[in-house]
C-alpha cells in the first residue's frame, strides 16, 4: 500500500464531493430550519443587545453564535453554514498539526486523525439544540493557533508575551475555547521549550482566575467552561470528547516515534492507511447514526403550526405524535383552522381529552407561545398576552414573541408597548419587513386592520372574569357570553363539551348553531345530538332547520344495531364497533370514562 493510496479517503473528504454529501445530509436529513425552531436564536443589530454579553467571558462568541445562527432560518443558508464550519475546523486542525507539532524533520505531511473532530461535529450538530458557539469557538481558536505557530516570533520572551496577550483577548472573546489555543501551543512548545509550555499552561489557568476575581462576576465553573457547550445529557459525553479529541490527536502525533530507517516507511504507510480508514469509518458511522426523530417530529409540528401550515400539522401529528399532548393540541388547532374540528376531531383517539384541546398544564411552560396562539384564536387576548410574556421569559425576545406581543398590544390599544416590540423587530435579521408593514396599523382604525386582527378584536371580551389555569375551558363560557358571535370560542366550547361528556351543555350550545354560518351540523355534533336525544329525548332543544344528515342517522342505526347484537355488552361489541372509531359514540363509549 503506498502513501498516495492511504491518503485517498482524506482527499475524498476535503473534496467537493464530501462537501456535497455533507450539504445533502444537513439539508435533507437534519433541516437547519428545525434547528432555528429549536433554538430560536435572538439577535438584534444594536448596542443594547451587544451590551448584554459584556458581563461574561466569551460574550463576543455568544453574540457571534446568535448572529450566525440566524442563517438557520433558511434551510439552504443553514446547511451551507454547517458545511463550511464543519469542514474548516478539521482542515485547520490538520494544517496546525502539520506546521506546529511536526517541528522535527518531516516524516510526512499528512495526519488523518486530524479529521477525527469531523464525525464528532456531525454528531453534535445533528442535535437540534447544540449551539454554534462550540464550533465557532473551535474555529477561532484553531485559526489563531495556526497563525501564531505559522508566524512565530524568534525571541521566546516576545513569543510568550504575545501568547499571553493573544490568550487574554481570545479568552475575553470566546471563553473556554481559548484553552484549546493554549493547549495546542503548550504541546507544540513542550519538546523544544518545556518551560515556555509550562508557563503557557499556567497563564491559561491564571488569567481566567484573575478575571473571575476582578472583571467578571462569575463562578469558577463558568470561568473555565464558558462556551464549551458541556452538557451532561449528551450520549458518550460527546460534547466534552469534542474538545479532548483535539488534544489527544495532537498528543498522538507528538508522541508518534520517529524512525528514519527504510523499513519505517512501510510502517508509516500502513499506519496512515489504518488511520484514514478509522476516520472514514467514523465519518460513515456519524452520517448513518440515528438522529432523535421524536424531537425532529416535534420541531416539525411546531414549525408548521408557527407558519399556519395546518395540513402539514395534521400530517406531522398523525405521524407518531397523535398520542402526545402537544400532538393532539396542535392537531385540534389544525382541524379548527381547516374548519373541521367538530366534524373530524374523533378521527384520532383524543386520548388526552380536554388537555388535547387546551394543552396539559405541565407542558405550557415548554410551549408557551403555542398556548398563546390558542388564546389568540379564541380572542382571549389577555391570556394570549400572558403566555406570550411567559414565552418571552422562556425563550427571550424572539421575533415570534415580539410579533405576538405587538399584535396583542395593538389589540389592547396599548400602542406604546406595541411600538416598543416593533422597534425591536426592526433590528432583527429576518423580521424587519414584517415590523415595517405592521407599524402603520398603530395609526389605523380596526376597520382597516387585516382580517385576523379585526376578528380577534371583535372577539375580545368586554367584561372581566378571572382565568382558571386548572380549568381553562371555563373561559369559553365567559367568552361566548360576552361575544356571542365568537366562532372560535363556540367551536371550542362544542369540542370541550364533547370531550368532557357534557352532552347536555352541547345541546344548549347547538340551540345557537344557526347563528353561525354552518351549511350543515358538523358530524360529531350530530352524533352527540343523536346520543342525547336517544338517551334523554329532545326536550326543549330544537333541531337546526337543515336537520341531521342521513349518513349520520344511518351510521347511528348501524352502531346501535351492533350494540344490540351483543346485548349492550360493549366489551364484546368492541371488535365490531371499531369501524365506528371515528365517531363521538365510540369516544363516549370507550374513551370518556378512561380519562
Amino acid at each position, binding site marked *: 500500500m503506498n502513501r498516495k493510496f492511504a491518503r485517498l479517503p482524506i482527499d475524498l473528504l476535503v473534496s467537493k464531493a464530501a462537501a456535497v454529501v455533507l450539504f445533502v445530509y444537513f439539508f435533507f436529513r437534519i433541516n437547519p430550519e428545525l434547528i432555528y425552531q429549536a433554538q430560536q436564536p435572538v439577535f438584534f443589530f*444594536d448596542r443594547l443587545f451587544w451590551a448584554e454579553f459584556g458581563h461574561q467571558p466569551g460574550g463576543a462568541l455568544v453574540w457571534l453564535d446568535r448572529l450566525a445562527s440566524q442563517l438557520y432560518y433558511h434551510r439552504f443558508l443553514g446547511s451551507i453554514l454547517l458545511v463550511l464550519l464543519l469542514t474548516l475546523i478539521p482542515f485547520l486542525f490538520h494544517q496546525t498539526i502539520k506546521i506546529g507539532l511536526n517541528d522535527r524533520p518531516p516524516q510526512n505531511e499528512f495526519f488523518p486523525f486530524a479529521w477525527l473532530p469531523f464525525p464528532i461535529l456531525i454528531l453534535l450538530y445533528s442535535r437540534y439544540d447544540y449551539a454554534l458557539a462550540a464550533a465557532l469557538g473551535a474555529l477561532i481558536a484553531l485559526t489563531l493557533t495556526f497563525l501564531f505557530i505559522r508566524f512565530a516570533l524568534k525571541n521566546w520572551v516576545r513569543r510568550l508575551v504575545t501568547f499571553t496577550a493573544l490568550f487574554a483577548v481570545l479568552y475575553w472573546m470566546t471563553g473556554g475555547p481559548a484553552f484549546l489555543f493554549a493547549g495546542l501551543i503548550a504541546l507544540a512548545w513542550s519538546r523544544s521549550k518545556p518551560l515556555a509550555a509550562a508557563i503557557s499552561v499556567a497563564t491559561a489557568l491564571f488569567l481566567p482566575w484573575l478575571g473571575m476575581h476582578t472583571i467578571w462576576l462569575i463562578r469558577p465553573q463558568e470561568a473555565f467552561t464558558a462556551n464549551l457547550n458541556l452538557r451532561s445529557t449528551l450520549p458518550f459525553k460527546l460534547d466534552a470528547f469534542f474538545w479532548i479529541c483535539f488534544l489527544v490527536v495532537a498528543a498522538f502525533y507528538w508522541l508518534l516515534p520517529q524512525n528514519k530507517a527504510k523499513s519505517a516507511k512501510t510502517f508509516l504507510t500502513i499506519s496512515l492507511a489504518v488511520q484514514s480508514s478509522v476516520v472514514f469509518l467514523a465519518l460513515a458511522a456519524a452520517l448513518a447514526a440515528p438522529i432523535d426523530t421524536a424531537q425532529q417530529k416535534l420541531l416539525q409540528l411546531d414549525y408548521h403550526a408557527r407558519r399556519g401550515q395546518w395540513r402539514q400539522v395534521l400530517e406531522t401529528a398523525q405521524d407518531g405524535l397523535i398520542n402526545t399532548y402537544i400532538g393532539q393540541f396542535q392537531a385540534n388547532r389544525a382541524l379548527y383552522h381547516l374548519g373541521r374540528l367538530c366534524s373530524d376531531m374523533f378521527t384520532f383517539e383524543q386520548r388526552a381529552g380536554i388537555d388535547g384541546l387546551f394543552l396539559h398544564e405541565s407542558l405550557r*411552560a415548554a410551549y408557551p407561545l403555542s398556548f398563546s396562539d390558542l388564546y389568540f384564536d379564541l380572542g*382571549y387576548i*389577555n391570556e394570549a398576552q400572558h403566555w406570550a410574556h411567559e414565552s418571552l*421569559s422562556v425563550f*427571550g425576545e424572539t421575533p415570534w414573541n415580539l410579533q405576538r406581543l405587538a399584535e396583542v398590544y395593538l389589540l389592547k390599544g396599548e400602542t406604546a408597548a406595541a411600538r416598543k416590540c416593533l422597534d425591536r423587530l426592526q433590528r432583527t435579521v429576518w423580521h424587519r419587513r414584517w415590523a415595517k408593514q405592521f407599524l402603520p396599523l398603530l395609526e389605523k382604525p380596526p376597520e382597516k386592520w387585516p382580517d385576523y386582527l379585526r376578528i380577534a378584536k371583535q372577539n375580545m371580551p368586554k*367584561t372581566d372574569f378571572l382565568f382558571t389555569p386548572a380549568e381553562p375551558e371555563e373561559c369559553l363560557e365567559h367568552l361566548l357570553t360576552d361575544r356571542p358571535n365568537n366562532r372560535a370560542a363556540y367551536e371550542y366550547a362544542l369540542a370541550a363539551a364533547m370531550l368532557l361528556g357534557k352532552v347536555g351543555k352541547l345541546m344548549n350550545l347547538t340551540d345557537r348553531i344557526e347563528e353561525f354560518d354552518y351549511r350543515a351540523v358538523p358530524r360529531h355534533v350530530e352524533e352527540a345530538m343523536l346520543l342525547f336525544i336517544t338517551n334523554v329525548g329532545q326536550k326543549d332543544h330544537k333541531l337546526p332547520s337543515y336537520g341531521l344528515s342521513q349518513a349520520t342517522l344511518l351510521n347511528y342505526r348501524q352502531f346501535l344495531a351492533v350494540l344490540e347484537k351483543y346485548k349492550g355488552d360493549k366489551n364484546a361489541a368492541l371488535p365490531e364497533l371499531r369501524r365506528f372509531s371515528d365517531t363521538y359514540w365510540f369516544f363516549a363509549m370507550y374513551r370518556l370514562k378512561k380519562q
Partner: protein
Amino acid sequence: MLPKAGIIVCMLAAGLYPAAASQIDRTPKIYPDYAGITIPPNIAPLNFIVEEQGSQYRVVISGENGKPIRIKSRSGKVIIPQRKWRNLLEGNRGKPLQIVIAVQDKGQWREFRPILNRVADEPISETLVYRLIKPLYVYWKEMGIYERDLTGFDERPILLNRTTGDNCVNCHAFADQRSDRMLLHLRAGAPGTAMLLAEGGKVRKIDTSTEFNRAVAYRDWHPSGKWIAFSANTVNQFFHAVGENRDVYDKASDLVLYDIENNRITGSPKTATEMMETYPEWSPDGRTLYFCRTDPLEKYDPSEHPYRKIKYDLMRIACDPEKGLWGEVEPVFEASRLGKSVTHPKVSPDGRYLLFCLAEYGNFSIYRPDSDLYLLDLHTGQVRDAWELNSDKSESYHCWDADGHWVVFSSKREDGLCARPFFSRFDGRGFSKPFVLPQKDPAIYRRLLKTYNVPELVSGKVSVDRRALLKAAWSRAVKAKLDPELGRRAQDEADEMWKPVPKP
C-alpha cells in the same frame, strides 16, 4: 431669565446659530420629557432626542454662569459631554438652565422657544440600585440586581441570577442608605430560599423561615441597624380577562422582626395577628413601626373571589425593640373607609411626611394601573394626592433620598408595561415635575423590554463585596432562631406563584 440675545451672539460667533432662523412659538418636543423639570446638580447629562422633523439640529444648553454647551446633531439625538455638563450644573446651582433648540428642515432653520429647567441646590444620593427583569408573569429566567451611578452612566451588576442557578434575586435593601450594609433575598433555584445579609465586611446566608413564618419578604432596616422588620407573605397571583391582566393578593401575612446580632426572628403578637400585616416601615427615630393591614380572607364570602374587597389601611405601633416593648396598634390612614388600599409607606428622613401608594384594592401596586402616590403630613394628618408625580399608569415603589430633598419612584407611564425610575424634588410643599433616569442612549427606554424594579437610593457606590455575595449565595444557609414568645403557626404549603423556567 437668561440674557438670550447674549447667547445668540455667542452662538453666531461660534458658527452654531443659524443666522436667519424663523421663530416657533412653542417649545420643541424632546424625548425623554426633560422640559420644565428641576434637576440635582450632580445628575448625569440629560441626553435626549429632538422629536421635530429636520435634517440638522443645533442645541445650546446654558445657564447664568459658565460656558454654554453647544451640540450639533444630524439625527436629533443630543449627547451632552459629561465634563461640560457637570461644570455647567455646578456653576448654576439654584439657578435656571435653558435649552435652545434650532432645527433645519428643507433648508430652513427654525428656532423653538427655549426649554427652561432648574438646577436645584441639593444633590441627590449618588447611587441607584434596582432589579432589572423582564415583565414577570409566572416564569422567570434572567434577572439581576444592578447599581447605577447617578452622576454618570456606569451600570454595574451586584448579583446576576445567571450565577446563582437562575433563581430569583429580589427585595434588596440598605440600612439607612449605607452602601456597606445590604440585604437581598434568594428564592427557589439551586441555592435555595434565603436572605443574604451583608454587614461589617461579611456576608451571611440566612434561612429566615421558622415554625412561625415562611421566608420573609418585604423589609425595612431599623435606623439603629440592629433589627430588620419583615413581612412574611403567602402570595397568590391571578389573571384578568380585561385590562391589566396580572394581579396579586396575599392569602396570609404577618410582621416579624429579625434580630441581626442574635440571628433570631422575634416580634410582637400585636403585629402578627389573624389580620394581614405587610410593608413594614420604621420612622427615622426608630420608635414607630408603620405598616399596612387588612382583614383576613376568612372574613369574605368563599363563593366569590374577594380580591376587590381587600383594602389595606395604614397603621402604626410604637415600639422599642431594644427593650422588647410594644405599644398599641393605631390607625394612621384608614383608606378602606374611602374604598381604597394603601401600600408601600415610606417616611421622609425628617419624619414629617409619609409617601405611599393608593389604589382601588390589594397590595401589589405595580400591577395596578390606578395606583398613585399620596403624601401624608404626619404632623397635621393631612393626606394629599401627589398629583405632580402621578399619571394614568401605575406609580408604585418609591424611596426618599438621604436628605429628603429627592424621591425616586417606579412609573409605567411610558407604555404601561415596563416600570422606569423617575426622580422628583420635594421642597416641603410639593414635588417638581418628575424626570426619568437619564441614559447615555436616550432612546434606550423605547427598546428595553425590561422593568426597573424596587429603585433604592444609596449614598455612594455599593461597597459590599459582590464576590462575597456570590460565594455566600452558594454557601449553606444558617437557620434563624425563633423567639419562643411568637409561638408556632401552621405553615401554608402553597406553591410559589412565581417560578423559574422549568429545565428541559
